[in-house]
């Protein structure tokens, strides 16, 4: 293990380290703590310039309730869910199929096709922006929930396929080979042999894509105009315009927007990190 485990350096060092940890953590998370502290202050505190001092009064519940009652935050929030969940479901399922095809079958264009998915995943959004928007407008998907999740699903399919293909490729090929020899149909091999084995990958992908799509801001701007189809990220920005000088409400709204990915992360931490660090170890 590197660096040398602290226990071996004697009790003094260990206690010093354990005291240092929370201190460093607080500095690291200072912006977040500051915004949380702001979100539980009253408007009077903010106007009086009391940003650091002990709050004059605690207004946590009022502030968080106000975000929902004084704005359309609840609609934005539901929109985000309606956009994110189908995106995850579609992209992960499509990628399972495609990843299986690219990993298991040997055909000439398998590698180029795989590279196509990988490359597409790294493309800057701006090169897609005008055509995707123009097309969405023309087919009536502009400013709709479906318009957003269809795009996200398609785009994330690139990353998901990269992920699934590598995962499936690492499975023992003999399993599939022997199933084939027994005459099992191809789709049954996929369904009954491969799919159960890739469950951990599915979980990892699902949380990752959930976070990516939930946090999207660019496409929310490009593919929506009004309020009705806006997700929470774009909504928080709109609230920022609406709650001018009401930093306690903007802070509360920001934290509300951050909650679902944070919950996802803590619930599925192992999968999340496994997904994110794929390729970081050999």
């Amino acid at each position, binding site marked *: 293990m590197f660096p040398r485990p602290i226990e071996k350096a004697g009790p003094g060092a260990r206690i010093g380290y354990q005291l240092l940890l929370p201190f460093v953590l607080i500095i690291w998370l200072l912006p977040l703590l500051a915004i949380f502290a702001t979100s539980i202050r009253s408007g009077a505190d903010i106007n009086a310039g009391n940003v650091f001092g002990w709050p004059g009064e605690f207004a946590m519940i009022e502030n968080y309730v106000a975000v929902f009652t004084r704005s359309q935050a609840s609609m934005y929030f539901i929109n985000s869910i309606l956009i994110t969940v189908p995106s995850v479901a579609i992209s992960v399922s499509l990628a399972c199929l495609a990843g299986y095809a690219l990993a298991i079958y040997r055909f000439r264009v398998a590698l180029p096709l795989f590279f196509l998915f990988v490359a597409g995943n790294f493309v800057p959004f701006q090169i897609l922006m005008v055509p995707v928007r123009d097309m969405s407008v*023309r087919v009536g998907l502009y400013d709709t929930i479906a318009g957003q999740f269809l795009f996200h699903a398609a785009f994330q399919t690139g990353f998901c396929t990269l992920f699934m293909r590598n995962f499936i490729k690492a499975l023992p090929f003999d399993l599939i080979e022997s199933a084939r020899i027994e005459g099992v149909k191809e789709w049954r091999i996929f369904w009954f042999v491969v799919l159960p084995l890739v469950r951990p990958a599915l979980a990892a992908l699902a949380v990752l894509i959930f976070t990516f799509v939930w946090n999207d801001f660019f496409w929310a701007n490009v593919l929506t105009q009004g309020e009705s189809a806006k997700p929470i990220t774009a909504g928080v920005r709109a609230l920022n315009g609406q709650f*001018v000088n009401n930093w306690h409400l903007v802070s509360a709204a920001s934290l509300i927007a951050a909650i679902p990915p944070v919950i996802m992360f803590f619930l599925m931490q192992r999968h999340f990190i496994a997904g994110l660090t794929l390729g970081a170890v050999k």
Partner: protein
Amino acid sequence: MLQKSTLAVALAAATCLGGGANAADLVINFDDLNPGPKQGFDDAVALFQKENPDINVIVNNNDREAHKTAIRNFLTADAPDVTSWYPGNRMAPFVDAGLFEPVTDLWEEEGFGEHLAAIKPTMTRDGEIWGVPYSYYQWGIYYRKDIFDLLELEEPQTWDELLSACGKMKENGVTPFTIGTKFLWPAAGVFDYINLRTNGYETHMALTAGEVKYTDEPIRETFANFETLINECGFVENHASMSWQDAIAPFSNGDAAMYVMGNFAVDAFLNSGLDVSQLDFFPFPTIDPDVPAAEEAPTDAFFIPANAKNKEDARKFLAFVARPDVQTQWNKTMGQLPINSQADVSDDKFIQEGFAMLNKAQGLAQFFDRDAPAEMAKAGMEGFQRFMTDTSTLEEVLQRLDEVQAQVY
């Protein structure tokens, strides 16, 4: 949020019993969901429906930003019979693409030329008139009357009076002007007024039409006056990091005394804790007495798309919208000014002062970002902001604006 309401469908059905096939649909797309403007529009539509029972009015009301995007699509794909939009350069792309129907003949038939005269130039492009306006609002200087009273200041009429008033404010620790230029456009209000007062309406319109260069002598003079205003009056610090709403804070706290703004800001002033008695308005002072006063008055209007199905009734609606009684009621409800010079205004003091000011105006500018093409507007406003933060960049700013101008027009 699209709101569809088939107003008075029942009424139409009742009066057209047996002749239902004659009831023509008239689809109107509108762009304001704010309570006042929405009410004014709905009332007007109800009245129109009552006067024309044979027309079945269908309304799509959308919010303003959404409308700006949607119109680009619906003019081609799914055109209504009437749509709200803005004159000046904002209508130019649609006129050029052949998406609007000229209504010059309607203006002639109904004699609008006389009562809507001030607005005619900005509704005109390529020799045709393209729409009928129903409302506008004034720009000018809103100020803290209580501070002026404390300092025994009068409303400045001339440039010198303004500068000396500023001197007195600064001596007493008051910043003369507040402004928030983070989103750029408030800076254009100041520029427009200085240019209108320095060079007059024709030169200003020639500038936004790309016929005068930014490095030309008249415009240099405008910037020289701008510099005087920055040095001898001055704006709040950090204006580049504030939105127009943020900039209300120093105004309502009494740290700054004046604000070059549009009349829509009055509500926000009042919401910030100021009382009506603490607020007042004066027109931007005269700089050159030989230059007749022209004002900023962004205008809202109605247009007929080229793809409209029921153009006949659409014309009826446009004629209706121009009527003095209609404009009086409508603008009273929405808190703005009627354009028809025979209409009456509400007794709100800001509206009264605005009406008096605009009726005397030699010409009406639409605001820099509506008069100039979008690309030029953006570059211009960035230039104004840059100049305001550092006046020594003047030469660079002017050169850059000339370059953009050469490309855009």
